[in-house]
């Protein structure tokens, strides 16, 4: 099956840059291929800011935090520009920037199923102790997705 739709999970790290380079070299020359760059952000926690004095004080700070998170959406757009500069046709690059409700692996799996991506590109940092605590995103994606090519950049 020819790969036509690719999902690139992106988290603004140097390894993500490696993933961008991989996607460009491996897929940009394939006619008709489309890429979606996906970032799931942790939304600011829901707090009733009218409930008490302390939550009222948090109101201004929380809206500032929301602005900082939304700044990331613009950062994601600059990634699409970088891909276009590297030779990927601009009209075949899309972005998905949405709040995460579950663990990051589930977000990737759900989006892949919803949008029927043929391939998923994720990165994996070697020997991470944090994987021990929060689970391995790449392992869960590989174990769960069927009929989808999963590329791991490490």
């Amino acid at each position, binding site marked *: 099956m020819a790969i036509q739709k690719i999902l690139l999970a992106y988290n603004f790290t140097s390894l993500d840059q490696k993933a961008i380079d991989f996607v460009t070299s491996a897929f940009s020359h394939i006619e008709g291929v489309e890429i979606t760059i996906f970032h799931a952000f942790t939304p600011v926690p829901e707090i009733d800011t009218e409930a008490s004095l302390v939550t009222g004080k*948090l109101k201004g700070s929380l809206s500032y935090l929301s602005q900082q998170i939304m700044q990331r959406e613009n950062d994601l757009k600059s990634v699409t520009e970088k891909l276009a500069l590297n030779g990927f046709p601009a009209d075949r690059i899309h972005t998905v920037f949405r709040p995460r409700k579950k663990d990051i692996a589930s977000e990737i799996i759900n989006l892949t199923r919803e949008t029927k991506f043929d391939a998923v590109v994720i990165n994996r940092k070697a020997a991470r102790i944090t994987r021990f*605590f929060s*689970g391995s995103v790449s392992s869960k994606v590989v174990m769960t997705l069927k009929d989808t090519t999963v590329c791991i950049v490490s």
Partner: protein
Amino acid sequence: MSAQEKIDIDLFKVVFRAIAQSDDLDIMANHLTQLLVAALEIKGCTIFALNPESNELENLASFGLSMSYLEKGPVLSGKSISDTFKGKPTVIPDVNNTDRLQYPQDARAEGIGAIVSVPIIFYGRVVGALRLYHNDVWDISERDVDSLLVLAENIGLAMTYTRILNALKTIRYTVDDIHSIWLLGQE
């Protein structure tokens, strides 16, 4: 900044309720860093997990700091505010006046004025660190440092809980992968 107490029971309630909204450690830890930055009006906050093999601190959640600062290089427990890993909370009220930082120039370039580092302890062992970064010189009160220690202990509990949960999930995936042919004659 004076040593005014900023963490009280109302703030504790807000923080604990917010982090209890999710059973995912990443979301919990990210909410905690966001809320501490908002409530204490500081520059940033990071939760590190300690890799006992490499003695490296790995970023579990962070808010308010640039990616270039977070990726400045390996953060080693023996070089970066090392007292934290002896179980002691450490206050660096002025980063221009300390030899306890591994990357002092990067801290200054990031616009960090002061750092508070609190150990995350579980079952008597340091499993990570909670670090708070202020733009300016910071004179945090002793009571606020104590409150941060309590918060850090709860992060330790959450980390341990999710570690066990992940181990169980891995076992479940492995069991699901066993083809029924291997179970013939076993029942």
